[in-house]
């Protein structure tokens, strides 16, 4: 059953250095606040998993939290490149990040296999491309009935999946709606899960069309209004497009990024850090940051 925790505690309890962590969201309901809390708590050596790593992963990578990225499309949607991601891959700054690269279809099916308790998934994928040559987790598999060769990919089983949702009740039952992407599969594939929500209600009334995560598959819920900003939360707030546009300039430059990290998240650059963040400073920073519109 689910614990209702402050975000700082939830991140402290659920996510450890070296974990494989998926923060999922498909343009909609991206768990930015949780990502920022991970940065504040200075997690290290994470394997970050996501179909569409975007700005929050750029921030995590730039802050030095990631050792490895498992993904299928990394960009600033509607704007361009992820410059912190590129700097890590092209130049190893602030540290080298290994990549394991798939297609969307492959990643989606890897989550499905994880959610289904299967060790692998089968798809018509990667045929004729160079992806299989560079990615060890793509293998051929033959149909035992027709002999046809297809692609097999291993299940994704994150240690922790973090998603943002519109609503939970006090028992930790969660509802999300609108474009829900691959979030259900990502939560069900994970060993632990953290759901940040716009609102916590006494009673969760059935909402047709909503994706429901019953409390018995959710490890922790954190009440975190605005927690998807600058992405949007259907029914709560719109996407803050200016934030994404402004991120391009901030992220192009290591110094501008370092200043952002310090000013907005209260985190000193990796080179100056010698100890883990003290958690008591996080909550204040979190609420301060959520009230601001720009990056």
């Amino acid at each position: 059953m689910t614990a209702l925790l402050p975000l700082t505690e939830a991140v402290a309890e659920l996510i450890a250095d070296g974990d494989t962590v998926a923060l999922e969201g498909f343009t909609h309901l991206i768990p930015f606040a949780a990502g920022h809390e991970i940065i504040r708590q200075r997690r290290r050596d994470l394997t970050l998993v996501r179909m569409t790593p975007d700005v929050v992963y750029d921030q995590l990578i730039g802050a030095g939290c990631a050792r490895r990225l498992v993904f299928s499309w990394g960009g600033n949607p509607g704007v361009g490149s992820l410059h912190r991601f590129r700097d890590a891959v092209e130049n190893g700054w602030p540290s080298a990040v290994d990549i394991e690269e798939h297609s969307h279809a492959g990643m989606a099916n890897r989550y499905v296999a994880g959610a289904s308790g299967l060790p692998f998934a089968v798809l018509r994928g990667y045929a004729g491309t160079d992806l299989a040559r560079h990615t060890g987790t793509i293998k051929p598999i033959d149909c035992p009935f027709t002999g046809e060769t297809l692609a097999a990919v291993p299940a994704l089983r994150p240690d922790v999946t973090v998603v943002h949702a519109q609503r939970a009740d006090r028992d930790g039952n969660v509802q999300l709606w609108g474009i829900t992407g691959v979030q259900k599969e990502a939560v069900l594939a994970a060993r632990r899960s953290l759901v940040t929500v716009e609102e916590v209600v006494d009673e969760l009334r059935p909402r047709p069309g909503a994706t429901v995560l019953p409390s018995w598959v959710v490890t922790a819920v954190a009440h975190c209004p605005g927690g998807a900003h600058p992405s949007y939360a259907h029914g709560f707030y719109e996407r803050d497009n200016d934030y994404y546009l402004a991120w391009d300039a901030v992220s192009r430059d290591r110094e501008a990024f370092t200043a952002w990290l310090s000013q907005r998240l209260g985190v000193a650059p990796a080179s100056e850090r010698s100890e883990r963040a003290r958690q008591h400073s996080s909550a204040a920073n979190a609420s301060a940051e959520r009230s601001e519109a720009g990056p």
Partner: protein
Amino acid sequence: MSHTTEEMMTIAAARALPDGATCFVGIGLPSTAANLARHTHAPELVLIYESGTIGAKPARLPLSIGDGILAETADAVVSVPEIFNYWLQAGRIDIGFLGAAQIDRFGNINTTVIGADYQRPTVRLPGAGGAPEIAASSKEAIVVLRQSKRSFVDRVDFVTSAGFGTGPGFRQRHGLRGAGPTTVITDLGVYAPDPATSELVLTRLHPDVTVEQAKAACGWELSVPRDPARTPPPSEAELAALRALKPSPKAAS
């Protein structure tokens, strides 16, 4: 009305989409062109986005492939695994509509890395997204990109999405079910694979573009017809629809 080369490219791409077709819309330029088609000659075009929206009918241009306006106007919103498995992989999509950073003479697409070394790329691009399977499983693929010697290359640095691979027979050998990239639309003209060689050849030049310009912006020895057809210039209605759709260039996906 005067128009930019980008507008010509977008309008030519929109025209390539027949009314009533089911179109899997990749991120970037394709989304603009597909929405333009729906607002001009193809009101019954079925737009399918990888975020899981089927039959989206947005009144304005979506800001991303997961824009809320897609969900609000769609016939159905399904999960991302479902959109790839039940709708794309099963072969239900008429046209896969893709952008590209690089395309080569055999229509192979690169959106992964620029540079010979995958581990130490010159430029790290966003990666595959849905493109490999869109290019594989759609009945045909249409690709739209700006043309230059850097984007129209003899051989892509990385095959993210297979076109005709190394030439005739490649798609069959690799079990690629769709016809592959049947049309490539740039800011200079329109290209199609030669039926015999699978090599992209010029089929149509946009207004005011010369064969020499097309050749100069191509990384291989481009084959051109003796008297290439001309793309009709944008109509006023097309330009008005495009501009109405896309008020602010900075906000487009």
